[in-house]
């Protein structure tokens, strides 16, 4: 039931968000959001806290009401539908498992409410438990499960409904870093590539880049840019996207007149002569790479080089012209050429 099948994309299939806004009193939580997520596509909503990504998710789920705009799912307008009518599944950051019910009863509650016959219900639950390797834990209460197991139960509950849209709200932020890395491909295998669009909220750029087909970067309730991780990294729409994506962060040199130059740390390299003079302040050795903190006439700079590269305390820095990212120093928008 959850295995992906090649489906001809029908016209209007997937999720379409048109001019979606939410205002609370004087505050605008989300302004005029336009987005499309195709069937089986995973879109990450990425941004700092308070940027409107969770607001968007709650609007899509029907948990909060939109102030303006429309949500179209497979061609039909669901903006006015209640959360229960939408057949949208959501995995919460807290997992939101019912603490008084066993794993199996957590899964059964929603199906029972909709009056599904017991036999069909049991079959479906057994299949999902099997898929997520939860069969042995079916009688445990949530309190008796580890964080990773709880997350799998939450996923199972989402998949069980055969949803038309899957929403994930920071589903891995309560897990430790190693488990997160292990789970990423697992999550992709389970959720993406099916028929339903997936919207994945995170503030972790690495997670967004690893999970999603496309990333939408939000800031203060406004969409900054949407595209593949590569596009966003190589051609950020503005200074904010450039600085938000990429660790260590981009070097933004002091503005010269109307323009400002940005250089990624891995694009700086030592040159024999004629470059920007810099002095080595300190280094962080990461095993596979090393991060150098430099002081120059253009301010402090970060440079990422191979781990075994030996560098003198005073050096000249250069970069290739095609790696230059120029921004409007006032508006922050990226300018086309040098």
């Amino acid at each position, binding site marked *: 039931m959850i295995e992906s099948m090649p489906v001809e994309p029908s016209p209007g299939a997937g999720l379409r968000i048109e001019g979606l806004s939410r205002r609370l009193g004087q505050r605008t939580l989300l302004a005029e959001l336009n987005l499309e997520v195709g069937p089986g596509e995973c879109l990450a909503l990425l941004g700092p806290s308070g940027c409107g990504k969770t607001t968007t998710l709650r609007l899509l*789920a*029907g*948990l909060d009401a939109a102030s303006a705009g429309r949500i179209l799912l497979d061609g039909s307008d669901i903006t006015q539908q*209640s*959360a*229960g*009518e*939408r057949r*949208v*599944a*959501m995995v*919460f*950051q*807290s997992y*939101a498992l*019912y*603490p*008084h019910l066993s794993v199996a009863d957590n899964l059964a*509650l*929603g199906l029972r*409410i*909709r009056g599904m016959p017991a036999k069909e219900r049991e079959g479906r639950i057994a299949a999902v438990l099997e898929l997520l390797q939860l069969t042995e834990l079916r009688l445990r209460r949530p309190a008796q499960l580890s964080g990773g197991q709880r997350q799998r139960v939450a996923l199972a*509950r989402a998949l069980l*409904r055969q949803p038309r849209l899957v929403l994930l709200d920071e589903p891995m932020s309560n897990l430790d870093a190693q488990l997160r890395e292990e789970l990423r491909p697992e999550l992709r295998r389970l959720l993406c590539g099916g028929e339903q669009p997936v919207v994945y909220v995170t503030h972790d750029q690495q997670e967004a880049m690893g999970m999603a087909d496309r990333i939408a970067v939000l800031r203060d309730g406004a969409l900054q840019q949407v595209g593949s991780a590569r596009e966003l990294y190589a051609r950020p729409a503005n200074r904010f996207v450039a600085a938000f994506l990429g660790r260590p962060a981009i070097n933004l040199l002091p503005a010269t007149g109307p323009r400002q130059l940005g250089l990624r740390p891995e694009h700086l390299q030592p040159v024999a002569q004629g470059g920007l003079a810099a002095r080595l302040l300190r280094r962080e050795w990461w095993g596979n790479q090393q991060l150098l903190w430099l002081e120059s006439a253009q301010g402090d700079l970060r440079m990422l080089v191979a781990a075994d590269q030996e560098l003198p305390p005073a050096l000249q820095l250069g970069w290739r012209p095609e790696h230059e990212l120029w921004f409007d120093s006032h508006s922050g928008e990226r300018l086309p050429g040098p």
Partner: protein
Amino acid sequence: MKSLLLLWSLAPLAWQLYTSLVTPEALVQGGGVEAGAFWTLENYRQVWLADPPIWRYLLNSAVVGAATTALTLTLAVPCAYGLQRQGGRLGWLVTLALLATAIFPTVLLFLALLQLARALGLANNLLALSLPYAALCLPLAVLLLRAAFADLPPDLEDAARLEGLNLPRRLRHVLLPLLAPSLASTAILVFLFSWNEYPIALTWISRPELLTLPPAIARIAGSSLFTVPYGAFAAATVLGSLPLLLLVLIFQRSIVSGLTQGAIKG
């Protein structure tokens, strides 16, 4: 320190128990009575065989207590939910008003209540007695349950909404099971109030077979012009306390967890 506190709160009860189990002579003279005439169950026999017997009052009190508890919780749960979830600024005002009525001295109300009972023909009706009781218990019940609702993680209800559970179903399948400790402790507080209430019961009920325990016990004390029947009085008190003791023993764990719930946050 603990044992001092125990002594402080248990000594009167122990004295009551002792009084109920000895003969009047033993009570008055202390140790100077011969062994055979010291301990007795005569006091219990007396209240059990009185007309109406003590179990009649116990039953009356139980009926009023159950009705009051049921009525209070039925009204308090939706009210607390509404105030907590969509109260807004008006909700705060309502909560403050509730708090104000909760601290209003009940004794000042009973004359007005008596007039109401007369006007509406509610006197000498056990179930009608639960109306003022529930009204007096509601503020505290709503405040306790409101705090309990505030302690529930909002994600749980959102998850249930997404699964298509409407409000009554969310309450029945998700929220109320999680509130069980708070519901139990609130129910017991309400039941206790109803069980112990004296002035309203005294004024609303005049037929002896309909009396609840507190006025009934008071009647035992005033039943004779010439003696104070300490023994029978104490026996009735002990019998009247037993059901409460049992109730609290059974639910003690949920009472403690329910009462401390709102205290930690919210």
